[in-house]
């Protein structure tokens, strides 16, 4: 017998309508209905997710979908709960998908990651929330984009992730706009990704607001613009597992940049961070802080322009190797800069508290003089090449 997908689509649709009408408000069988719909979804189709809480026993895996839209009734309304996942730990994965829109839903309590995009192109996430209620068991990554190109995250939220609310790894052309991350170890992490814009986002009450990290793997981390965001009071105690690189970062940092290249941080509000508003470091300087790293990459071409700073570095509590180091060298402030990095350009208000650490062997020298770094910044598009 020939396999006829159309008949499956039709049958699934009838089943969907029937069960949806019968179980509105309970959603206990929605997982089955949704899986059936997903397994036959074709280009151009839209799947809808009803309001209410829908428990899922299996993760949602979508492979090779092109041009589909999945629409819920809003992040506060359509809630997919993965607390009782029976196998695997990941709630939702798109692999090798393109031109997909996912919007209007919450993914709650995934045992591991919330939403993973692997080898995808042109994906839009809109009005999507990833959250964990309990940070002692929370997963590591909220939205986890890997090896993907063209990812837009707009109006989304992430809360309670043990590594990062949003992370882009080995990705190209990524935009985070008007999104929020809170109560996570890192709000938004950019790790070995290129051409990234973070704009109009709110990063509040994480351990680190935004982290740009060149991890020791053969892929660049460069061309990143952080523009017009509110980065406030990211002093949440770092609760990442001890093995995690992020565990050594401590907490109380607005923007942490490790060995990233071509970065502009402009017109952001950065306030109330115990250790530092912005901390630029490189792997060699991390090694001097006692953080184990095998990477020799330096950070370079950094621009800090017209940011608003307030009350950063007032209360470094020496958490994590980074915090201990900065506190012991009295280097907390609005901008802390490891001056082994080539090219640093600052155009900030004179009230900005600046510390440049020269980590050349054998000693470590400290300067608070910003004057030698003042320069005319480059146009943003020259930096991020987006």
């Amino acid at each position, binding site marked *: 017998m020939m396999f006829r997908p159309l008949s499956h689509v039709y049958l699934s649709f009838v089943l969907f309508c029937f069960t949806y009408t019968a179980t509105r408000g309970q959603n206990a069988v929605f997982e089955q209905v949704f899986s059936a719909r997903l397994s036959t979804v074709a280009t151009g189709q839209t799947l809808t997710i009803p309001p209410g809480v829908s428990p899922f026993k299996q993760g949602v895996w979508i492979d090779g979908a092109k041009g589909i839209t999945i629409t819920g009734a809003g992040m506060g309304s359509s809630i997919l709960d993965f607390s009782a996942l029976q196998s695997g730990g990941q709630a939702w994965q798109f692999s090798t998908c393109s031109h997909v829109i996912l919007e209007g839903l919450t993914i709650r309590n995934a045992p591991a990651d919330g939403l993973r995009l692997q080898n995808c192109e042109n994906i839009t996430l809109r009005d999507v929330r990833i959250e964990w209620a309990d940070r002692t068991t929370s997963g590591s990554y909220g939205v986890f984009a890997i090896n993907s190109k063209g990812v837009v995250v707009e109006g989304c939220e992430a809360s309670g992730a*043990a590594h990062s609310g949003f992370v882009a790894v080995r990705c190209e052309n990524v935009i985070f706009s008007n999104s929020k991350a809170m109560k996570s170890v890192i709000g938004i992490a950019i790790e070995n990704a290129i051409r990234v814009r973070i704009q109009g986002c709110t990063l509040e009450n994480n351990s680190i607001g935004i982290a740009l990290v060149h991890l020791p793997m053969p892929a660049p981390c460069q061309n990143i613009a952080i523009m017009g965001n509110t980065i406030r009071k990211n002093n949440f105690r770092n609760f990442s597992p001890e093995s995690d690189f992020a565990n050594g970062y401590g907490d109380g940092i607005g923007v942490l940049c490790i060995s990233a290249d071509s970065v502009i941080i402009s017109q952001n509000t950065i306030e109330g961070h115990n250790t530092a508003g912005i901390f630029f470091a490189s792997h060699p300087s991390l090694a001097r802080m006692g953080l184990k790293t095998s990477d020799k990459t330096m950070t370079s071409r950094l621009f800090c322009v017209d940011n608003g700073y307030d009350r950063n570095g007032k209360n470094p509590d020496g958490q994590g190797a980074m915090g201990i180091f900065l506190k012991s060298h009295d280097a907390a402030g609005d901008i802390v800069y490891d001056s082994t990095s080539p090219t640093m350009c600052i155009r900030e208000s004179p009230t900005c508290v600046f510390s440049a650490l020269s980590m050349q062997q054998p000693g470590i020298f400290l300067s608070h003089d910003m004057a030698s770094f003042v320069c005319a910044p480059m146009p943003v598009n020259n930096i991020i090449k987006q």
Partner: protein
Amino acid sequence: MRTILKYLLPVLGSAALLCMLNAAKPLTPAQYMRVAAHQNISDYGLFEGMIRNMKPAKGVFRYDVNTALFSDYAYKARFIKLPDGAKIAYDPAQLLELPVGAIIVKHFYYPADFNKPAEKLHFTETRLLIRQPEGWEALTYAWDESQVDATLTNMGSTMPVEWVDAQGYKHGMKYQVPPRAMCKGCHDRQGKMVPVGITARQLNRMGAETPAQNQLVALQKSGIITDMPHISQVPRLPVWDDPTTGDLDTRARAWLDVNCGTCHNPEGTANISAFYLDIQQTDPNMLGLYKRPLFAGRAAADLTYDIVPGRPDSPIL
């Protein structure tokens, strides 16, 4: 005669018309070569008689691998169907190149008693990888209680399985037939669907069906593989639990290659871990020696390094 013609002419006419229509719209090679996905395993004609007896039909041959992926204790039986006259291209390191139209078949089953591995078999699923003109297509078929045939499933399912292990202990669990979208969890190289075990080093062994002859030599003799060097020049993966096939280190690397290296390699789905356990890997840092874990999350369990030589208890692995 006239009566016969009266009936025959319209038939011939229609046939001629059909031929003309066909000539006007010739099948493209891709349409011609495509293997249609069927609803049941029995529809493919891969086996003679009852499928569960696993007797290959003509053009289908069984193969075994040196070190198998652990799959929840399931036994696995593997077959390849090749189109008539088709050849397999030899490669010493990478996957063997199977021709368009080839089907790789894998049954998953549990003998009731692992000490009697050919009796009372409970089949859970049969997976197919079909080499279509545009690439590999993965299909999963779940067996039901009648144990006669398996049916295509897109969503996957769970089913209870029970067995008595080699030491006589009874076990039971919920077996999960994965949804089709999950195939790429493992069968993925940079976003492309690929087979996993079809390598010369895995097939370089005596077969269950040909205990007196190396599987690759048998394929060479039958003219299916033509460009392979002498079998002594072909790489061979050790059998992880057979000390006569390699020292501890090489057998450990074989086990890690098969059970971890499928994803943990520079092109696999775990490539962002920068922790590569594929058999070709030689860089100690990439092999995880004193390397900090990347993207391991809570799986790293507060441990510092991927691998610490000589200390099996302290690193993450």
